[in-house]
């Protein structure tokens, strides 16, 4: 009988191989009294030095195999073996209580591990694993045992373990190991992070169920879905072998698009950018070869704290993102808060209709100090890359002019103080209110770009809250009414020689991309993982042809009709 386990998909991939169970050796050292604490302290120091020599070897191999960033964890391990809270405290305990080194170290490490594990932060709980890893190694040295080695492996294997330490993961023999399953861990565990950079399939956090898997059991590891099938049927084996081949082919094909330009089949260049909500998202943006950042939501800077972020703090964040993007355009949206997104320290009054209330630019124009601080930080950061500032929730021209007036004032002030501001800085608005879409030709004269925020534009156009399930059916991105508004906006921008982009979910939707391209959209901003599939899709589309097809779609009577039409066209082209 086959058995199905589920866990967290930590690193995508599909593997089929026999299981190898890695037993954790968790021995609790016995307490012994020692007669000569000074000699016992020396014994600890020697064991620490021997452990350091081991770790340093692992660090060097990792450096060669995975580069300096991944090797850093072992530098951190070496560093921890010098930590006064760990080593000095253990030495004190040997001295004061006259106990053996193994026991003293185990006790001291346990209380540190416990403190770290009780933290309300995944990353800190992971550090507990580091402390366990290094102290386990020192204790092995003290007891004269060899620390577990993965060198016995000699055939294709899926590793099964309660947990993998960073040093276990770094030493995996990639010639044989096809993937791993652990009972504990999360997407941010070191082993998960390493698996992703080794491109090794991994499912973590399956719970105790995985402890039933024995060495030699046949295992299908579907880390794209977070599933583990133990002792699969012949039919399952056939099915997954086919899926595995398909997945690998797809991955290779997508990877080939990382460094390619975003160009249509008829040679039209577009921009495929990414949305980010914080600095953590940058790595994924770069790995997927995005042409820029089409929406940087700055709310994270303001949330989860007790006071406003200073100009200096904001400046360093914006500068960091611009520098990382290395000359590619970064569209930073000014604060979009209010309504349902609250800041405790701002003390906004409760509103009857938060989505129709004082949010985003409306709030910023009211609380000018708050707005000016952000604009100054942005203006200063503009020297470090290709910055575009975007104002959210513009409904009427007056708001845009007011926002631009304040921006111009802050710019003049900075320049007077001798601070440089980039001359190529772009200023644009988000189009998410129907009034702005309809008057896009008026607004276009006074901006450098538009970015269509479809999530809000659709709900305001349909007058339907998309979080409300009973009216969620009205959330129809492909409805001809929405396409007509989108067309108005793009045409207005293009007529005035400005660029039009889109930063809502619709921009990464494979059934919307052909229509948007046909309507003349220039920039598509989506989640990082959608960039490569979008680039591959666009390379197969002719803009000229889709200009005609989009015109036909606009004349249709329902979303379903549009979707059927697009899918049929895509199929006939494939």
């Amino acid at each position, binding site marked *: 009988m086959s058995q199905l386990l589920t866990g967290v998909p930590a690193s995508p991939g599909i593997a089929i191989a026999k299981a190898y169970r890695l037993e954790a050796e968790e021995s609790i050292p016995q307490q012994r009294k020692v007669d000569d604490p000074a000699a016992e302290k020396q014994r600890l120091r020697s064991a620490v030095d021997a452990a350091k020599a081991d770790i340093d070897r692992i660090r060097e191999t990792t450096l060669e195999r995975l580069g300096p960033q991944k090797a850093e964890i072992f530098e951190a391990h070496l560093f921890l073996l010098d*930590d*006064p809270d760990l080593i000095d405290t253990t030495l004190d305990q040997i001295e004061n209580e006259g106990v053996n080194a193994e026991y003293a170290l185990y006790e001291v490490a346990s209380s*540190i591990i416990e403190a770290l594990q009780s933290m309300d932060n995944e990353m800190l709980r992971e*550090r507990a694993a580091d*402390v366990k890893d290094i102290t386990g190694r020192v204790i092995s040295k003290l007891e004269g045992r060899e620390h577990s080695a993965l060198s016995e492996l000699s055939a294709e294997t899926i590793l099964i373990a309660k947990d993998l330490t960073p040093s276990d993961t770094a030493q995996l023999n990639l010639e044989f190991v096809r993937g791993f399953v652990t009972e504990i861990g999360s997407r941010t565990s070191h082993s998960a992070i390493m698996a992703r950079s080794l491109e090794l399939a991994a499912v973590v956090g399956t719970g105790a169920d995985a402890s039933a898997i024995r060495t030699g059991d046949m295992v299908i590891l579907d880390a794209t879905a977070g599933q583990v099938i133990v002792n699969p049927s012949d039919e399952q084996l056939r099915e997954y072998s086919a899926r595995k081949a398909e997945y690998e082919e797809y991955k290779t094909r997508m990877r080939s698009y990382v460094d390619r330009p975003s160009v249509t089949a008829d040679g039209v260049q577009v921009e495929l950018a990414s949305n980010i909500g914080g600095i953590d998202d940058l790595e994924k943006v770069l790995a997927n070869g995005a042409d820029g950042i089409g929406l940087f939501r700055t709310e994270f800077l303001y949330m989860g704290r007790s006071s406003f972020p200073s100009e200096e703090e904001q400046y360093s964040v914006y500068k960091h993102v611009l520098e990382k993007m290395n000359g590619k355009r970064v569209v930073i949206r000014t604060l979009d808060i209010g309504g349902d997104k609250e800041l405790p320290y701002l003390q906004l009054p409760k509103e009857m209709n938060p989505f129709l209330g004082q949010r985003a630019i409306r709030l910023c124009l009211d609380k000018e100090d708050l707005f000016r601080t952000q604009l100054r930080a942005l203006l200063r950061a503009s020297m470090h890359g290709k910055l575009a500032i975007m104002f959210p929730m513009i409904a009427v021209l007056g708001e845009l002019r007011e926002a631009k007036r304040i921006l111009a004032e802050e710019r003049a002030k900075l320049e007077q103080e001798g601070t440089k501001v980039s001359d190529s800085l772009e200023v644009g608005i988000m189009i998410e209110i129907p009034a702005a879409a309809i008057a896009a030709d008026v607004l276009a004269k006074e901006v450098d770009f538009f970015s269509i925020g479809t999530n809000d534009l659709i709900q305001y156009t349909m007058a339907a809250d998309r979080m409300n399930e009973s009216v969620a059916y009205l959330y129809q991105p492909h409805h001809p009414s929405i396409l007509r508004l989108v067309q108005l906006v793009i045409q207005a921008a293009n007529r005035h020689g400005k660029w039009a982009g889109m930063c809502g979910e619709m921009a990464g939707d494979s059934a919307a991309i052909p229509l948007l391209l046909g309507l003349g959209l220039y920039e598509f901003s989506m989640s990082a993982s959608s960039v490569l599939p979008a680039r591959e899709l666009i390379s197969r589309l002719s803009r000229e042809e889709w200009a005609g097809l989009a015109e036909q779609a606009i004349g249709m009577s329902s979303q379903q009709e549009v979707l059927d039409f697009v899918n049929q066209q895509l199929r006939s082209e494939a």
Partner: protein
Amino acid sequence: MVTQTFTVIHPQGFHARPSKLFVEKANTFPCKVTLFKGEKKANGKSSLGLLTLGIAAGDEIRLEADGEQEEQALQELGQMLTKIYEE
């Protein structure tokens, strides 16, 4: 003894890399370095101590330096609390 409060902005919190750099810097000063977050305190020369404080972005941390070169330590270590690191 000198002391001052700083707000940490590094988005991933003051963990692996930042705490390591902080401790390395702290160890270049002869004075005692202590960090306070609310009621908890930690030895500024121990990265494990720093980690157990669980410093996240936006946290207000009181830094205390006591002894030789305390002024310089407070200034330089304070700067380290309020910057963004490459992870």
